[in-house]
């Protein structure tokens, strides 16, 4: 299950999508919007996606981890648009017969999604806003290692 939506996410529904009687372990990650960033009060987040590519890359992350851990049951759902504080922007649910694979695959799924899926977030403060990762990356001069440089 891959989902990119402007609607609130329902973690229980997404978790249920991976539960099967042959699985003994289900690991779920919820990414929620935090109320502060480096001392600044965040009032909401605005997520923007290159939607067609985002869905494709989410599916690639899913396939990558299915192959690496020999598991089938991975669900990834990302919310975009405005997400208020404390709400869920990302749900990843992984089920497998044994827990170790479920923990590793879920953790790696989050890391990979944040590396390669073209979704951006803007933190909106009381007195301004900021595209979060963009500025960081400019500061460090680093691109994610897995994304080929597009500039000559």
């Amino acid at each position: 299950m891959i989902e990119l939506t402007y609607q609130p996410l329902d973690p229980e529904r997404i978790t249920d999508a991976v539960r099967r009687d042959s699985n003994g372990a289900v690991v779920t990650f919820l990414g929620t919007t935090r109320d502060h960033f480096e001392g600044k009060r965040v009032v909401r987040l605005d997520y923007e996606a290159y939607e067609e590519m985002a869905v494709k890359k989410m599916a690639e992350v899913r396939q990558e981890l299915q192959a690496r851990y020999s598991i089938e049951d991975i669900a990834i759902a990302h919310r975009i648009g405005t997400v208020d504080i404390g709400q869920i922007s990302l749900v990843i649910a992984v089920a497998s017969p044994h827990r170790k694979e479920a923990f590793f695959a879920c953790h790696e799924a989050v890391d990979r999604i944040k590396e390669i899926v073209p979704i951006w977030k803007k933190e909106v403060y009381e007195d301004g806003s900021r595209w979060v990762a963009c500025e960081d990356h400019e500061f460090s001069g680093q691109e994610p290692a897995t994304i080929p440089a597009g500039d000559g």
Partner: protein
Amino acid sequence: MHLDVTFFALYRERAGCNRFPLDLPDGATVADLTAEIRRHFPRLAPPEVKIVVAVNTDYADPDLILRDGDEVCLIPPVSGGHRHD
């Protein structure tokens, strides 16, 4: 060849547009495209920051040769591994 280049997020705001039409000579590469984009939008990204390009919904190497009508998008860095939501 003719391309419409799409901007997202920070790049869209800095460029002041979602989409920018661009004519490039046949055989032009992704690197040629980003060089041209930098000429039109010098404040889009600092020189030390590489501009990542997606062509037809995949990340493209700088030496990829573009074709007329390719779907070209400029990709500012995504949420990133060291900071999460």
